[in-house]
């Protein structure tokens, strides 16, 4: 199956659902923008990888799973954390390194966790979290539960050993897992074409006799549809899927990396922005009469408030106690 | 032509010489008659002259080395001449100047059997640069036993002192707490020492006697005892207090003779001779110079009692820096006491006798007391001892001088 999934028309009966998707995308977009500002002001330190432009993938996919499903992702994860149930307050406070952050200030941007919501992080080594996700799926199967695991990673991760080993075992053991490759075309500064012998990520699935799919990652509804079928396959058939979502990031790899320049042109960036997922959904909803300008304004305003509140919360939250240096090295 | 530079006999009695300073260095050109070095002999500092011409190719004894007369200390030869390969002569001694003050040994209590005189020390290599190598355990053990590590020979690698070395060393010499200063003997001192011992026996004693007017001291004593609060003060207590105070001013008398050096103490620990049934023992009043008269009186009484009961511990009868012996209670007017080694001096106190004395041209009957000081001539010379005694006399005749 190699034709991209595409959704044209909206279903008038699902207005609430589309509102939810749009709201989440707006929230994530605004959150990332303000986080970028905070980083530039020195309030967020270390690495900060922004998701701007890729919203359709996280929101589309995570709305196709259950709250009790396991979510594992890499370090470009603020969106996934927020959508799968970690509050924007707790995420922002964690970016600020404060005590009320979701990881107590000890993880940072790359290590967000919300274990009660089955959000399992937040991992910094490229590709290393794939086996972790497969382990969660293994546990679900071991316990004979119908939970599944969904794992997000970039296209540069498909060249590392852990990708290969994990997909092989997932297929070998029929693990209930969905592998979502967020193909934003560039590693840090290396285009996929310069890193991979095979450019269509989804095609690698055949090495493992695994189900594959590819989807327009700038189309939240398409992503949602594609994920739904992969999730069903995992939950009902206990079979893994490799789902390639073709998307684009507007910012640099991280806040410390150039937005464009050597590795991609400004023109390319401007061209991709024309496919902006939020703009696209807004148009679709307007065309379908499913949202008014006022409602949109309200939605934007509410989102702004929520993010402003999250920033405020983060600013007010104190530093962790000095004694926190020594806690949780071991679990008692 | 090779000329050997020898340590020459620069005085008739010289047996060894200390090379103070080389005035020429290896590689210097010298002619016959040039002064090569300064040498300290048994009498004075002399010049060592070159007996040949050429280049001073080798110096075989370093500055500060003491070498026997006749040893080769250097070689003069032509620049390219082959010269014999000779070892360095003599052992480098520590600096001839007074050794730096050492802090007190942390002596808790010296070990058993200190009544015997210090046993001969085992062969102890001089610590290079002053640092003694010892394992942490050995250090701790030595400190606990009040052992001076520099007295212990180390059997470990590089002369490291280890546990078995400390265990095997008895606390040889008695220790006295307090600061002290060791002074290396100069050549002159060495010679005097040797001569005296050869003619006078183990400790070369000489004796100094002074007669003291005790009127004021008697009055003071009566007045103090009339106050009623505190112990009764005896004349001996007063003498001890004064002797201790005087020793502070005459440190040269507050010393020990140790083989090869004199130890001058900062603190005064007064040995007090006490007659006991079959002999004599000297309990020590420690820090006597810092104690008040009543403290001395109290302590003297207690120690004497315990001495008679044979209850004194070794720590209580060793470690004194000077002694006082009183036979006045036996009506002895004058006697000469024997020095308690390693101390260097002892004052013998006679009885107080009323004597006719001429004062301001008038004949008076006044209370008089004779003190005789025995001195170890190796440590204390005539004038030194006399000055000390003079201070004692002055203080006893003017009791207020004690608080001056």
């Amino acid at each position, binding site marked *: 199956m190699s034709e991209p999934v595409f959704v044209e028309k909206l279903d008038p009966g699902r207005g609430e659902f589309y509102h939810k998707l749009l709201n989440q995308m707006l929230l994530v977009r605004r959150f990332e923008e303000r986080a970028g500002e905070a980083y530039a002001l020195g309030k967020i330190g270390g690495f900060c990888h922004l998701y701007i432009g890729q919203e359709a993938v996280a929101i589309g996919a995570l709305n196709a799973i259950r709250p009790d499903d*396991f979510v*594992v992702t890499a370090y470009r994860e603020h969106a996934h954390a927020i959508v799968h149930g970690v509050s924007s307050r707790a995420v922002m406070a964690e970016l600020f390194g404060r005590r009320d*952050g*979701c*990881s*107590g*200030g*000890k*993880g940072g941007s790359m*290590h967000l*966790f*919300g*274990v*009660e919501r089955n959000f*399992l*992080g*937040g*991992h*910094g*080594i490229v590709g*290393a*979290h*794939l*086996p*972790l*996700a*497969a*382990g*969660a*799926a*293994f*546990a*679900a199967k*071991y*316990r004979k539960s119908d939970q599944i695991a969904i794992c997000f990673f970039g296209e540069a991760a498909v060249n590392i*050993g*852990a990708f*290969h*080993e*994990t997909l*092989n*075992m997932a297929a*070998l*053991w029929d693990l209930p897992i969905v592998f979502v490759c967020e193909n934003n075309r560039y590693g840090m500064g290396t285009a996929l074409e310069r890193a991979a012998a095979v450019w269509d990520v989804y095609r690698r699935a055949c090495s493992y006799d695994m189900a594959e799919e590819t989807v327009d990652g700038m189309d939240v509804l398409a992503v949602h549809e594609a994920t739904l079928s992969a999730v069903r396959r995992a939950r009902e058939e206990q079979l893994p899927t490799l789902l390639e979502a073709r998307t684009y990031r507007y910012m640099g790899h991280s806040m410390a990396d150039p937005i464009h320049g050597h590795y991609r042109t400004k023109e390319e960036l401007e061209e991709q922005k024309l496919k902006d997922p939020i703009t696209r959904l807004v148009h679709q909803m307007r065309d379908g009469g499913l949202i008014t300008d006022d409602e949109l304004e309200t939605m934007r305003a509410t989102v702004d408030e929520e993010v402003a509140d999250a920033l405020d919360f983060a600013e007010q939250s104190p530093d962790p106690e000095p004694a926190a240096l020594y806690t*949780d*090295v*071991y*679990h*008692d | 032509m090779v000329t050997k530079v020898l340590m020459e006999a620069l005085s008739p009695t010289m047996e060894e010489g200390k090379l103070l300073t080389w005035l020429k260095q290896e590689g210097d050109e010298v002619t016959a008659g040039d002064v090569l070095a300064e040498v300290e002999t048994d009498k004075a500092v002399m010049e060592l002259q070159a007996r040949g011409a050429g280049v001073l190719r080798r110096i075989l004894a370093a500055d500060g080395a003491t070498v026997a007369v006749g040893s080769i200390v250097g070689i003069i030869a032509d620049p390219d001449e082959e010269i014999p390969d000779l070892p360095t002569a003599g052992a480098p001694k520590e600096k001839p100047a007074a050794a730096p003050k050492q802090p007190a040994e942390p002596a808790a209590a010296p070990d058993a059997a200190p009544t015997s005189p210090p046993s001969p020390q085992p062969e102890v290599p001089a610590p290079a640069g002053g640092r003694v190598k010892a*394992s*942490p*355990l050995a*250090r*701790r053990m030595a400190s606990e036993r009040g052992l001076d590590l520099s007295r212990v020979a180390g*059997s*470990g*690698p590089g002369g490291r002192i*280890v*546990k*078995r070395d400390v265990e095997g060393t008895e606390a040889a010499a008695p220790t006295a707490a307090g600061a002290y200063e060791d002074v290396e003997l100069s050549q002159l001192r060495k010679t005097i020492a040797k001569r005296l011992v050869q003619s006078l026996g183990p400790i070369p004693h000489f004796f100094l006697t002074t007669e003291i007017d005790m009127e004021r001291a008697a009055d003071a004593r009566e007045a103090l005892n009339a106050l009623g609060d505190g112990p009764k003060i005896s004349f001996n207590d007063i003498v001890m207090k004064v002797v201790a105070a005087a020793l502070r001013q005459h440190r040269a008398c507050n010393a020990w003779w140790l083989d090869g050096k004199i130890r001058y103490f900062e603190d005064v620990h007064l040995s007090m001779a006490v007659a006991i049934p079959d002999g004599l023992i000297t309990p020590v009043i420690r820090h006597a110079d810092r104690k008040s008269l009543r403290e001395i009186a109290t302590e003297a009484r207690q120690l004497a009692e315990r001495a008679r009961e044979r209850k004194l511990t070794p720590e209580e009868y060793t470690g004194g820096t000077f002694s006082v012996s009183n036979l006045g209670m036996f009506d002895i007017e004058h006697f000469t006491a024997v020095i308690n080694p390693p101390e260097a001096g002892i004052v013998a106190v006679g009885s107080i006798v009323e004597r006719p004395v001429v004062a301001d041209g008038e004949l008076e009957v006044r209370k008089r007391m004779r003190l005789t000081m025995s001195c170890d001539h190796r440590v204390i010379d005539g004038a030194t001892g006399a000055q000390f005694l003079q201070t004692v006399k002055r203080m006893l005749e003017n009791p207020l001088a004690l608080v001056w």
Partner: protein
Amino acid sequence: MPTITYRDALNEALREEMERDPDVFLMGEEVGVYQGAYKVSRGLLETFGERRVVDTPISELGFAGIGVGAAMVGLRPVIEFMTWNFALLAIDQVVNSAAKMCYMSGGQLHVPIVFRGPGGAALQLAAQHSQAFESWYAHIPGLKVVAPATPYDAKGLLKTAIRDDNPVVFLEGEMLYNTKGEVPEGEFTIPLGEADVKREGTDVTLVCHSKTVATALKAADRLADEAGVSAEVLDLRSIRPLDVDAIMRSVTKTNRCVIVEEGWPFCGIGAQVVDEIQREAFDALDAPVLRVTGEDVPMPYNKNLERATKPNPDKVIAAVRRVAYLD
């Protein structure tokens, strides 16, 4: 009391823990159908089935990570590395995932996993199959590292390691699997972080672990006969946490210490023990602490060369003679 092999002691531990807790499972290469590369898991597949005894492809990084992921959501995996040499491929999962997860998540997650397998040298396996990895893992906060020397210790410690809620690196030894020892029937565990005096003595402390315990014991016997030296043999059992109190008690008593370890000298386990001793027991020492270690070379194939790299009683005795100033 039964006498069983170290291998069988481990087998019993696995069996008992898998019976006791349904969340415990074993995963690794050849653990199931093959009965275990070193037969440690013999019979387990038959008893517990495929779900709980999982044969893997040769994918150390992958299956170590799967184990960590399963532990993150509450299972209790025992991941077997065929040897610890191969675990280098998986070390990212052991260190960056397992060890650090609890801390990074602010305590939200813990990883109750055991990584086990044989480490160190066997016989003529050459450079890539003979390394001792204690130091690598002992270095990491968040890991526990255990190295039992006897069947009794192996069983008691493995049971405890499986029940521990933290990642445990469990270092066995191919040369130990066949050794025999008394192991009581019935339930028993041994706490982590406790050393064991295998032989009491008064004159020198021999600190050792795993294969060097036997070496130290042999040296102790000969020292008693040949030199009248009474050596105390202290088996660390756990490397991290290290039983510093036991080390101090022993060294304070004997005033002398020789450490016997299989690994390479630089930054080896002994270096840490020396640091502890010189810091905490400085005044008890009558001599410097010496170490008998593996020679600082990759393991050669030739039998005699290999023998020369390993600690042996002669080397231990020579070191003891030095610290006791007998030479």
